[in-house]
């Protein structure tokens, strides 16, 4: 079910938004229409499913803050529709808009935006106060929200007495207390230091597991986007250049800009075993004889191979030395040489967790499905390759002068140093 939908949304600030809009539609760029106005958001179209965490990612000035502010009517779009349920936020009157903000959509702010002269509990209760909930009820519900974010017992202090991370928890509790189905988070963790930020991200994922809100999360941090988002929209110069899952953005970047952007992401947390695994070069059937296996290993020049049964369920691994020993002792079946204790991963395992098994054994790491059927392997070289973005060429291979239309506009040419 769709919770929120944007259709052809433009937001242009300035003297003549109409003129700027017309020119943008005729294909003008953001810079070309600057004399008529500043185009903050250009032709944004997307849907957010209910219960989904939708991350909008972009650098500062990309229009993401303006975009999120249109999702609760803090800004009205210059053109286009923003559908929250059946209401078009571009057209609702002020009274209905206030009603929607009270009941349907709440917000968490970058710099927390708490009322400094009110206690933590009063801050968390603020949306309920606006909704007209009576005092006892709002204290109870605000207390529950504070408990959800791990701040029970802190209700009577003022925000200035809390650390940044705790203040943002109050901000989150306030948004949760409002009990709306849509939650907008504007760079909510960007002002926090990295360790606290990680903690808050984990907490948000936990809460999301319990509450199943529809979350629109704005960030400039790609790692955060990948970690939190079910889907990610990448914004550049006011336009949404790609919408997709973290893996799609990483493995099939829509253009050079996105490719550059994802170049420094912590790929090991985003990519999964399933996305990099290869079909195994050789598998042997558990029913095969030792001689047959030895011949296969010799032909393929491999020191070992994975053993599967008819249904491709992983049985173990055989090594050349063990097979030879078994043959000398006159064994007719492979089972004598079989090493059953094999560490495997599943297709959904993040690559970060594949390193340890890969380090333990010289063999590619086997990937098995829920029924332990072998679906692929990850050779170490593939693992290392996956950690490097596709279009980043090792430094030694960079030409001294980039050719015409170099795919790396940011690449710096270095003149050969003069050695004295």
């Amino acid at each position, binding site marked *: 079910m769709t919770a929120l939908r944007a259709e052809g949304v433009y937001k242009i600030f300035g003297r003549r938004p109409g003129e700027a809009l017309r020119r943008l539609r005729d294909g003008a760029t953001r810079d070309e229409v600057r004399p008529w106005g500043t185009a903050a958001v250009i032709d944004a179209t997307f849907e957010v499913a209910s219960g989904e965490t939708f991350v909008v990612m972009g650098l500062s000035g990309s229009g993401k803050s303006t975009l999120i502010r249109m999702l609760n009517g*803090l800004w009205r779009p210059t053109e286009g529709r923003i559908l929250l349920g059946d209401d078009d936020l571009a057209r609702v009157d002020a009274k209905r808009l*206030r009603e929607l*903000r009270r009941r349907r959509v709440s917000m968490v*702010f970058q*710099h927390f*935006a708490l009322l400094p*002269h009110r206690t933590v509990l009063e801050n968390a209760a603020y*949306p309920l106060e*606006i909704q007209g909930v009576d005092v006892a009820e709002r204290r109870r519900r605000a207390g529950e929200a504070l408990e959800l974010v791990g701040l029970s017992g802190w209700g009577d202090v003022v925000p200035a007495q809390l650390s940044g991370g705790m203040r943002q928890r109050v901000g989150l509790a306030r948004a949760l207390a409002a009990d709306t189905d849509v939650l907008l988070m504007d760079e909510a963790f960007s002002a926090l230091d990295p360790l606290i930020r990680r903690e808050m991200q984990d907490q948000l994922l936990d809460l999301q597991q319990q509450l199943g809100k529809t979350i629109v999360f704005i960030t400039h941090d790609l790692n955060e986007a990948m970690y939190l988002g079910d889907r990610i929209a990448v914004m550049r110069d006011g336009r949404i250049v790609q919408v997709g899952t973290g893996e799609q953005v990483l493995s099939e970047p829509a253009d050079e800009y996105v490719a550059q952007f994802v170049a420094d992401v912590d790929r090991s947390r985003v990519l999964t075993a399933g996305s990099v695994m290869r079909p195994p070069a050789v598998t042997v059937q558990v029913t095969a004889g030792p001689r047959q296996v030895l011949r296969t290993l010799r032909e393929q020049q491999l020191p070992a191979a994975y053993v599967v049964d008819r249904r491709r369920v992983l049985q173990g691994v055989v090594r050349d030395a063990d097979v030879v020993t078994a043959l000398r002792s006159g064994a007719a079946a492979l089972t004598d040489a079989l090493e059953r204790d094999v560490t495997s991963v599943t297709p959904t395992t993040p690559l970060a967790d594949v390193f340890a098994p890969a380090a333990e054994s010289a063999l590619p790491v086997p990937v098995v499905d829920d029924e332990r059927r072998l679906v692929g392997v990850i050779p170490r070289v593939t693992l290392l390759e996956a950690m490097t973005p596709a279009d980043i060429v090792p430094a030694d291979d960079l030409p001294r002068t980039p050719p015409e239309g170099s795919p790396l506009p940011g690449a710096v040419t270095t003149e050969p140093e003069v050695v004295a």
Partner: protein
Amino acid sequence: MSGTSILPRLPLGDAVESAIDWVTTTFRWLFLALRDAAAFAYDALDAVLGGPPAWAVALALAAVALLVRGWRLAVGSLVGFAVVIAVDQWDNAMDSLALVLLASVVALALAVPLGIWAARSDRVSAVLRPVLDLMQTMPAFVYLIPMVFIFRVGIVPGIVATVIFAMVPGVRFTELGIRQVDKEVVEAGHAFGSTEGRILRQIQLPLALPTIMAGVNQVIMLALSMVVIAGLVGAGGLGGDVVNALTRVDVSLGVEAGLSVVILAMFLDRVTSALAARAPVSRALATASA
């Protein structure tokens, strides 16, 4: 005669004078009503401050100091008031205090709403700015002349001129205070569905209060300085004696009246700045740093 040969003499002063003449005669009834109201309010306030024995009023004022700040300010105020009583300026001081309080209340009643309006509208702010500049920089004596025309000599022209002169920082500080309120916090008010009026009452005014209180302090101090000048048009009080001392070249009277003004000024300044520190926002921030 060099300048006059190029441009004809602009009869600006005459024009203003005839405009004031016209206003005076046309709205005579309004000014008479205003004068009576101001005189009545002043007499009532003066009766409260100047009626009871000096020691009782001095103790009451010291009690105010004790409440808003602490015992040090209370003791200091008592010593100051004792000096005023000892140099025989107490009655004058209470006349002046009544004038200052009345003028400040009226000035703030006008200034704060104007400041709020200016903070919410760039256009109002742009129109108001040169008017405020004019009110603040025009030599204070100049206000007094038309006031005497309109209200005749006495307390009332002094009050009106004081209001006009003293309200400027009230407007400026209110506007500044509201415009300085963290934009995100105001956004939060909107985002949770608050109405404009509620945002003003629950967010903008409380957060701007320390700045607005600094404006209140300035209004009161300017009112006090104007009260002395108002002595020229017969407003009486400490200003009257300062003017007397000036015309008679009486150093001893001048020092005594002048010193009383200083004592009154210090009392008012310390009390109003203590009030600013008691604003909820200031207190919340103070708890955190303690």
